[in-house]
């Protein structure tokens, strides 16, 4: 257990199955403090599953998941809830509570998990909303926000508890290039200003290379490439090369080549 202490996150020999389909196969991965790890992979390859394993929402069939010195897989409910205070999560579809306005959404963790006064909470909420440029939307409900605005509010909510680790599930998917860049810069500034470690799951190339200090490629349940962005870009691995080029020729579509040929 002590050997895990220096890592922010460590997954060791993790296997995960959904209805007989092996999504993660003996996967091992470590994330160091203040790193921005980008996990790439096809849709449905298990990228989001990794984030849910780190949060302890899913439990692996075999293997261990560590967050700092805590073995997530063995924690009791109460302890797990406390550990989650140090982890922020930004969901692909924002997952804002539709019955609450922006202010109440961002204030939720503070109201529920701290004993801060309303005044203090309002101050923190304003500060976080200001950080993501959403201070004016304070009183709007999620249904009145666009996709990009929702994402930014979701990010503000993830940051309210000053987490050490923030997990991003497709943070820029479906956003226009300008807002995508704003989100990317926010992610980068988190490491620079608040010493936050980030794990970003995405398949948006431009975003991935802008944000990542380390890149990992998930394919058929395993990490097949794990390197700094420059090395990753020039990877000799045919799967990585095909994924980066977006070509239809290569090992990724081998099974469905005939179907494509017919088209």
């Amino acid at each position: 257990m002590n050997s895990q202490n220096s890592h922010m996150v460590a997954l060791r020999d993790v296997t995960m199955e959904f209805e007989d389909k092996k999504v993660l196969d003996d996967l091992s991965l470590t994330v160091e403090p203040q790193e921005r790890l980008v996990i790439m992979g096809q849709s449905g390859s298990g990228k989001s599953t990794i984030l849910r394993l780190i949060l302890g929402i899913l439990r692996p069939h075999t293997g261990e998941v560590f967050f700092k010195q805590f073995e997530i897989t063995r924690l009791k409910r109460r302890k797990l809830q406390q550990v989650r205070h140090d982890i922020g999560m930004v969901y692909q579809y924002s997952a804002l509570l539709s019955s609450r306005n922006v202010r109440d959404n961002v204030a939720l963790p503070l109201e529920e998990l701290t004993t801060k006064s309303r005044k203090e909470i309002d101050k923190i909420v304003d500060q976080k909303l200001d950080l993501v440029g959403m201070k004016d939307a304070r009183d709007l409900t999620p249904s009145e926000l666009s996709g990009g605005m929702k994402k930014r509010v979701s990010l503000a909510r993830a940051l309210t508890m000053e987490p050490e680790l923030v997990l991003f599930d497709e943070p820029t998917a479906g956003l226009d290039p300008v807002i995508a860049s704003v989100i990317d810069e926010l992610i980068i500034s988190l490491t620079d200003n608040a010493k936050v470690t980030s794990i970003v799951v995405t398949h948006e190339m431009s975003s991935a290379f802008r944000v990542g200090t380390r890149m990992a490629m998930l394919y058929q349940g395993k990490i097949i490439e794990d390197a700094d962005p420059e090395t990753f870009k020039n990877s000799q691995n045919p799967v990585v090369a095909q994924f980066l080029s977006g070509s239809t020729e290569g090992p990724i579509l081998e099974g469905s080549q005939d179907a494509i040929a017919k088209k």
Partner: protein
Amino acid sequence: MPDQKQDSTEEVLIAAPVIALQEIGNIGGGLLREVGSIFWFIINTIEETIERVREGRVPFTASSFFRHAERAGVDSVPLVGLVSFFLGLTMALLTGYQLQRFGTERLVPGLVSIGFTRELGPLITGIMLAARIGAAFTAELGTMTVSEEVEAIEAMGIGPLRFLVAPRMLALFFLMPCLSTISNISAIFATSLISKAYFSIAFPYFIDLVRDSLLIRDLITGVMKSFLFGVLIAAIACYRGLNVKGGAAGVGSATTSSVVTAITVVIGVDTLYNVVYTNFFPT
């Protein structure tokens, strides 16, 4: 070929009882699993709530509780009152005409009031709340589950059972006996109107007859049942809502299943309660 066909038919016939038994076993096993899951769901909700209270924090805000209480309780008053009023009218009228043939229509006030306070009041209210509020709870929590809101709450380190289920369960727990009482009062009021109009029982005499026939244990039985039904309806509705799978269609089928399960459970538990009650506390 015909021989082969006969053989396979015979095989199927021989296997039929086994298959039927397997199916019954599967259904029985599934049912027991469900009962167990809902039981643990209630226990976990109570446990999470108590844990929070022990930390010296309120488990949920008063506004959250009152919002659900208003929706489940206050807003249900017209429906419960009206349906019980009509049922009271019908019951008084039908039993009155039968009893009139033997000259015992004086029994109508007692019969309807005992019937409602002990049995029909909580039962009818339970069925109506299962349909009206159970469906709403399941659809609401189901939609939250599908849109990952529940997971986001969990990911923040907030207990979703304590935060989402406990206020709903407590609201129904406290509001159900109140609504049962309203149901009883409107049914008895309806009976008084019928008694006056058709059987010439004046209002003061009606009150005397009701008071003579009602026992305190009838009232307590009804109230106890109502508390129990309130928890069960809320638990089933929330359980179904939080276990939704498969998008909008999943929310739809979970809502149907929630209403059907809650109504069946309310009637089933009512029967069980009566069997136990009459065996251990015979009149």
